[in-house]
């Protein structure tokens, strides 16, 4: 018994289009939701063209490029959506293609899971799909691999097209406030330590959320309860969730410790998750929503640190006041529906110095989506703003020592150790193996 994939009609049209272009083999990603009984494919997107000339070995897709694309796309998927697999449109021999696809799908899974701060659960589906479309014969070959098993072999799977797959999916969402304060270690090398500290602190926050009590529409539901709770099926539902937390039992350190400063993240993130319409369970909704909250904050923090690296110092959106405190705005979340009339959206992050056109460009490049400004939902979060008046919170230290101006360690570190930090940032959220 293989897996069954229920696929939006639109995807068929998209794959056909890829067959018609003649620039060579096309690879891409399949995006949707898994459930224990079947998988739903909501959209597909081709791997974007590389800027450098493609004089490389013609027929096989660039593995690194495909996985990097998958990593970026994964950041743009709210809760409930994930990269389900990889497709290739090529007239190369099926057996060879299958081998390539297998390599790709494992590499994609490894990279995406290494970025996560939450651990996958026992009941998470670990099958990923590979699809081979032959443009000449228009034949589609669909197989699955179990990415938890390195020795897994291809299993057959059903690929069925259907219309309106996600048009009546449920949405659960909430606005989670974040207030994390962490000490920096007691030595002056700045950014590397900020990254490490942040990772630990966000891990603690993620743990708090994972054990948080979740209320859906104001009630605490039993884990096995159905989300719709007796209401008509196939009617779109939106639910709002509440999360109740207590401080993390494991703490970094007790008492008073020396430190090299502090870093804090404070504000709110809008978190949302989509659930298929076939009797979704409350427990699933809670899990997907919490994962989305953790992912969205982690992604943004990582994006900020990457941005700081590339811009070589204080970014446009930062300000430094006389108390040696630097403040950076994390990007805010913008949503775009996958299909005009459906509830399911993808998202992107817009920095304060960007306009909506940049968002539209990224949606086109990463997800091959043609969106217009009017389609974008920008009102779930308000962009962060650094207020000059915030300085009042900081302690005014009257000792002479503090009034000496201190060098900006951050800038100094940036100038001399860019290469090192580049590695540090890319390893930012790798789980310890």
């Amino acid at each position, binding site marked *: 018994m293989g897996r069954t994939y229920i696929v939006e009609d639109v995807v068929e049209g998209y794959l056909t289009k890829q067959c018609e272009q003649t620039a060579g083999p096309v690879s891409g990603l399949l995006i949707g939701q898994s459930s224990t009984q079947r998988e739903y494919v909501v959209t597909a997107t081709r791997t974007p063209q590389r800027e450098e000339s493609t004089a490389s070995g013609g027929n096989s897709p660039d593995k690194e490029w495909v996985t990097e694309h998958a990593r970026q796309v994964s950041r743009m998927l709210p809760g409930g959506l994930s990269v389900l697999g990889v497709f290739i449109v090529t007239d190369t021999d099926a057996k060879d293609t299958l081998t390539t696809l297998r390599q790709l799908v494992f590499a994609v899974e490894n990279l995406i899971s290494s970025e996560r701060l939450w651990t996958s659960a026992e009941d998470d589906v670990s099958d990923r799909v590979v699809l081979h479309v032959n443009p000449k014969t228009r034949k589609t070959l669909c197989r699955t691999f179990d990415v938890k098993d390195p020795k897994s072999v291809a299993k057959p799977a059903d690929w069925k097209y259907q219309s309106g797959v996600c048009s009546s999916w449920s949405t659960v969402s909430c*606005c*989670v*406030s*974040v207030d994390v*304060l962490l*000490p920096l270690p*007691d030595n*002056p090398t700045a950014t590397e330590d900020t990254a490490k500290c942040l990772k630990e602190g966000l891990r603690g926050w993620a743990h708090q959320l994972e054990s*948080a*009590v979740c*209320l859906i529409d*104001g*009630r*605490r539901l039993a884990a096995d309860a159905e989300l719709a709770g007796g209401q008509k099926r196939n009617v779109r539902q939106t639910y709002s*969730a509440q*999360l*109740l*937390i*207590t*401080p993390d*039992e494991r*703490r*970094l*350190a*007790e*008492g*008073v*410790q*020396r*430190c*090299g*400063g*502090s*870093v*804090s*993240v*404070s*504000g*709110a993130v*809008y978190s949302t998750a989509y659930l298929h319409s076939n009797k979704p369970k409350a427990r699933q909704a809670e899990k997907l929503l919490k994962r989305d909250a953790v992912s969205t904050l982690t992604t*943004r923090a990582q994006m900020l640190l990457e941005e700081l690296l590339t811009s070589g110092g204080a970014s446009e959106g930062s300000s430094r006041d006389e*108390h*040696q*405190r*630097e*403040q*950076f*705005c*994390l990007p805010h*979340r913008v949503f775009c529906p996958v299909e005009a009339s459906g509830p399911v959206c993808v998202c992107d992050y817009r920095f304060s110095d960007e306009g909506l056109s940049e968002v539209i460009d990224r949606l086109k490049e990463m997800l091959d989506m043609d969106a217009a400004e009017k389609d974008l939902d920008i*009102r*779930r979060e*308000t*962009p*962060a703003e650094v207020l000059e008046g915030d300085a009042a919170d*900081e302690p005014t*230290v009257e000792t002479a*020592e503090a009034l000496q101006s*201190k060098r*900006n360690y951050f800038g100094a570190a940036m100038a001399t150790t860019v290469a090192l930090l580049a590695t540090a940032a890319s390893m930012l959220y790798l789980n310890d193996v």
Partner: protein
Amino acid sequence: MVVSDSLSSDRGTILRVRGPLEFKCHLVSTDARHMLKVISRTFETLKSQVKSESCVLTVCDSPVIIWPNKDVYITPQEITPNAPCDDILKWIQSDEQDPAGLRSAKKKSKKSSAASVINLRLMMEATKTGPLSAPILSRTVQKSHFLSTTFPVDCVVRTTVNETIKDAFERLLKALTHQLCEMEKVTLQHTKGTTLLVPEPLHFLLPEPKGLVTVVYPAGVPDSQLEAQRKELHQQFELPDDWPYFRRANTYHFPNEPYKDGYLRNPHLVLTHPTLDNGKVYLVQGTYSYHHYMQDHTDDNGWGCAYRSLQTICSWFQQQGYVERAVPSHKETQQALVDVGDKKASFVGSRQWIGSIEVQAVLNQLLGVTSKIMFVSQGSELASKGRELANHFLTEGTPIMIGGGVLAHTILGVAWSETSGQIRYLILDPHYTGAEDLQVVTDKV
């Protein structure tokens, strides 16, 4: 002087809220004035958190959740704020041991002679109504100090009969805020340099009508250093100076709360008293723990009965707050006897039996307690000592060790009739070799 150790249910239920509150702040200097200012400011933040709409109290073992600062909003909505507090009890599932100590199957809480406690957990709601501003990351690079700890909030309010949920919880919130103020005082008082002592709330049961009282002590500071504070409390509550009420050992033990050390406390309480013509019952006062053969991985089967009886007596002194010394192990007891010159050094580690005289010597040596030995040459003579035993339980209230021949026991009380002279003894048997199971222990009796 009798100190009741259980609350009657004449008054309403007890609301007890517990939860950790995270306390974190960045100190740019360890200058005392600055530290106090920052600590005070952080406490202000905690107080406003507790008074905010994000403060949530969840009822343990139940789906009931209460927002005390949102006009006392409750979910499930079947419960309204104007309902009596006791209604919450109907929503609590419990399959633990009931106050009498016997295991019961899953059943709703039944009426018992002890007051009911509604346990609540303090939590914060992390979600708010949007749209809200995206996060800001702040960095301060400066050689400084960071203070991070968690305060164990533990707040109790005794409701009056038929008090509404709204009123009770508004009082509970006030009590929580008050506790934070007390914690602030203790923290500021005991912060020196870079050490911080965590303020720890403890509950003490005072004679009616004062009832339960909560005091915040700095954690880790032994009772001996808190004498001034206790004197003040005794004055404040008009309590006599010769009976301990506020030592750590006097902390009120809530019903259904397990003891951390695993020993049974006062197992005799579940037994029914014998009836004698014109008889009265005279029992040990206060609490003791049950010590018997084979505990603490010590195989003393056959020789350790007097040692165990001694341990039970020592536990009484510790739990009433007279001494801080933990109950002595067999080796410690033996060493004490060597130290007073009663036994040779080879005694330590042996399996030699001890008698009443030795027990008296050890009590004196280790606890500084003097005791009286009463001789009876035959078991039948015991009956004539009824009056003396009754008097002992009335005035001193400690357990009595009885040793004779090759056996030792502990007497916990007598039922004695002044007119008929009939007497029954309540015995705690140190020869028991089983586990700490109240059911098994009392059945054997």
